[in-house]
């Protein structure tokens, strides 16, 4: 149902977008946005608005194409020749891969505000009606009577945030005592009922199959799920401490220049920072930076302490090396 409704909404948005730009389609410039899987609906809503904005600002009618998939797979297809002009991902590492290959400017994180992350989110919990297990914080997730659903950190960026958030919590709770942190993480990981390969799979396990007491995902995603599946059947819990999940954007310089879309690509990403763009993003339950919009949506986003990945493990690169690569900490913690 969820997917279907979303699909309908997307179709409506696409048709709307297409009809707006149809008259001058033939000679219109086309921008290709390569994005992560669950942003399909978000950008279907943003693109037609951007087209109108660009028309108003520059008097030029343009078209925006979207491509969605797992963020790493998307980056790989650009490396292999997909001519995307801009990327809007949920993993800093996936943009960095493109920068390392010379397709994106080395200083891409300085080219746009807030580390080139126009919006952000955090990791939150979705629990069943009335929160029967009394889940409030990360330590509740390591209790014996609680069973969890989140995807495999080996295959899902979303789950890597979950893992690092739990790690950051444990480091703070146990004052960095390595043994205690490892014990906590071992119990936390053992409480997982099903390891799906991606975020949407985990949602299906939790909602459709009724598995687990807590679904862990991005705050934006759990809010959207609750909105789709029933405000009364599920509750969103934002823990008092969690992780900052950035959604980095960048111009794929080489492609944009070759496509003659340099200004358009920059304009597209700039639009995400405008009040209008930020309001659209907040409507999809993403946290934003624009002050007026932040105030407007204040009750939607409970205050919480957000740890940075850099503060927990130094950098994404170190996180991959020390935690997620073959034989590293994650593998060790799951060993029997």
């Amino acid at each position, binding site marked *: 149902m969820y997917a279907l409704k979303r699909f309908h909404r997307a179709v409506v948005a696409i048709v709307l977008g297409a009809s707006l730009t149809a008259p001058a389609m033939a000679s219109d410039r086309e921008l290709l946005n390569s994005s992560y899987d669950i942003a399909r609906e978000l950008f279907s809503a943003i693109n037609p608005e951007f087209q109108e904005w660009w028309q108003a600002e520059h008097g030029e009618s343009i078209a925006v194409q979207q491509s969605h998939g797992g963020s790493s797979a998307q980056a790989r297809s650009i490396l292999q020749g997909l001519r995307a002009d801009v990327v809007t991902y949920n993993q800093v590492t996936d943009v960095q891969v493109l920068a390392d290959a010379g397709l994106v400017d080395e200083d891409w994180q300085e080219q746009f505000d807030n580390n080139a992350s126009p919006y952000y989110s955090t990791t939150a919990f979705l629990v069943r009606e009335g929160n029967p297990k009394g889940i409030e914080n990360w330590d509740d997730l390591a209790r014996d009577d609680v069973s969890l659903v989140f995807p*495999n950190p080996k295959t899902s960026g979303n789950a890597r945030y979950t893992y690092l958030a739990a790690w950051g919590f444990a480091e703070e709770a146990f004052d960095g005592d390595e043994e205690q942190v490892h014990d906590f993480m071992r119990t936390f990981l053992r409480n997982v009922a099903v*390891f*799906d390969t991606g975020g949407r799979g985990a949602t299906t396990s939790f909602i*459709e*199959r009724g598995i687990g007491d807590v679904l862990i995902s991005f705050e934006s995603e759990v809010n959207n799920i609750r909105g789709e599946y029933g405000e009364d059947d599920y509750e969103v819990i934002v823990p008092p401490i969690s992780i900052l999940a950035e959604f980095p954007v960048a111009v794929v310089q080489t492609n944009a220049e070759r496509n003659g879309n340099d200004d358009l690509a920059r304009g597209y990403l700039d639009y995400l920072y405008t009040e209008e763009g930020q309001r659209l993003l907040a409507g999809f339950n993403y946290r934003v930076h624009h002050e007026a919009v932040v105030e407007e949506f204040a009750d939607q986003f409970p205050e919480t302490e957000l740890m940075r990945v850099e503060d927990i493990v130094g950098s994404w690169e170190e996180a991959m090396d020390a935690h997620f690569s073959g034989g590293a900490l994650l593998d060790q913690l799951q*060993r029997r």
Partner: protein
Amino acid sequence: MSTRSLSIGIGSTPKRVLPGFGLSLGISLTFVSLVLLLPLTGLVGQLADLSLAQYWAIISDGRVVASYIVTIGAAAVAAIVNAAFGLLLAWVLVRYEFPGKRLLDALMDLPFALPTAVAGITLATLYSSNGWMGRLLEPLGLQVAYTWVGIALAMAFTSIPFVVRTVQPVLEDMPVEVDEAALTLGASDGTAFRRVILPHLWPALVTGTGLAFVRSLGEFGAIIFIAGNMPYETEITSLMIFVRLQEYDYAGASAIASVILFVSLALLLAINIWQGRFIKRLHGGRG
């Protein structure tokens, strides 16, 4: 030209439909090289990045070994179940006339045609504790989804056509008169099946079962949604390969894949050799 082709036609070698042995073999070999050997060479090429010690460390990792056991165990169960029911299905399809026979026959190919992910999602929906089947089985203490039983079930689903489609033509070639002759010569039903029918079907049945087993070893899409993917318990080897690929660790993925490849090749080769001997023995002496 005409005399030459005529001489072939009436000569000792029978006339072939396709032109020139050289040309057709050449095309076959090129095709096999492109679709089969090239990727296999690529796989071996990836392995060249590894030292023998690294290779061994990857394929003997505890978690990967646990996945072999889960995969091979579930595939064996699925293959044996398919051997029994596939034989029965082929028998029913060949020896009886009943309404809906064509439909059942066509249904047999469905697992080949259906995207395996669809099969996996459907099975998981049915057998999870709130699904139609799961709701009935759970009170009996039988958990299917997210256990190795679910893995075996998904494997059985995707590989049943192999048994049916290999046994069926052999059974079709065997006239009903053969059973009747056995019965008139005084064999009981059981004896006729065991001593007369089964020996004829045996090579096809073993090949079909072997193919079903090998197919199950490599299955990913159908299983991943019903397996639960818990480390050491319900992780299949294909997932281990997938995880390595996600990490851009192509050599590691190839190393694990080579184990599955080796098991598959060894099994298929063994079946072929055994089959050759079996058929020789069956027709031996008199043939």
